[in-house]
């Protein structure tokens, strides 16, 4: 089960993920990604219980989308487990490389 709390203040989009971000729930996440008029996206993971490869792919898509549209993307309140998964797969490295440019 996945719940997304979405908040837009000025041009900042905040998404708080609660529950399981996986193959079965990914459409719910996609429904909340609308970048028109947005200059900053913050995704909070504090209440995320589990993420699978499809969920990681969705987060990467937001990172790439941000890079292509000059929108900064921040990943906040990651659990140690989620940090480890993002670290092993290379999500942080991709984020850093895109931030530095040239991709």
């Amino acid at each position: 089960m996945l719940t997304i709390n979405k908040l837009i203040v000025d041009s900042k989009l905040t998404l708080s993920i609660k529950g399981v971000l996986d193959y079965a729930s990914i459409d719910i996440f996609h429904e909340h990604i609308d970048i028109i008029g947005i200059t900053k996206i913050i995704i909070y993971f504090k209440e995320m219980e589990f993420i699978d490869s499809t969920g990681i792919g969705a987060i990467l898509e937001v990172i790439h989308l941000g890079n292509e549209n000059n929108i900064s993307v921040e990943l906040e309140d990651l659990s140690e487990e989620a940090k480890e998964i993002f670290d092993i797969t290379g999500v942080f490295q991709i984020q850093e490389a895109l931030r530095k440019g040239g991709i």
Partner: protein
Amino acid sequence: MIFPKDDDNNSDGVQTSEEMGKTLQREIHMARNIQMKLLNGEKPYSTNGQFSGISIPARLIGGDYYDFYPLYNGKIRIIIGDVMGKGIPAAMLMILTRGAFRSASESTQSPGETISAMNNAIYRDLRTLSSFVTVFCADWDPHTGEFTYANAGHSLPVFLRKGVELQDVPQTKGVMLGGLPDQRYEDESILLHDHDLVFFYTDGIVEAKNRTGEMFKLARLVHVLEENLEQDASEIERIVVESITQFTQGLPQRDDITMVTLKIGKEKSEIVSINCPVLRS
């Protein structure tokens, strides 16, 4: 070539939804057969060690991948991988990954070079499809025991020696295939001894859940391996599968499950060739 039978179509030559469903089902089963044959084909054989590998898709077909590739220098290249997602889309990309691995293995000198070549070959396709693949690749030299490996976003295998998990194995990590272009993947190396066990796995094993929502977890996997270190590679594989089945208590499998077991040791090997590993089904 298979031609559609006349009764696949109605009088207008257009398939009904029921007929389309049957066609789709038939084609998925054919795709499953293709994937299973490619995955469970030739296994390497060495006088100095045993190999085993199995992939159990959560659906009819899956996105996990493992492969063995004997090199001309006598080493055996091993890869395990996990394509993002599940089912047919993941299976299609698994075949793409397999082709990239086999092609890269022909022309590269180390696991790191192989992964770099694979990423160069399929990066654009994966980006276009918003997908990625994690892989761990290793070369094992049956004569020296050297085990060289590189990693693109995958979990490290479990290394066991004398009944306990090796904790001081050099860590290596790199970005998943499809993550960034022009990546270099560093090689690390350790020396394996008789009776050592290297267990490659995908996350479907450690993330398998039971009825209370508890995960199988790496610690439980390591415990099962430690308890059964004396067994043959294929028996260890069977025991791990059984442990997961018992743990999940009959719940439907949520993710593809894949494992490769490399057990070092001479005792239960039959000599086929003095110098070089051979393939056998």
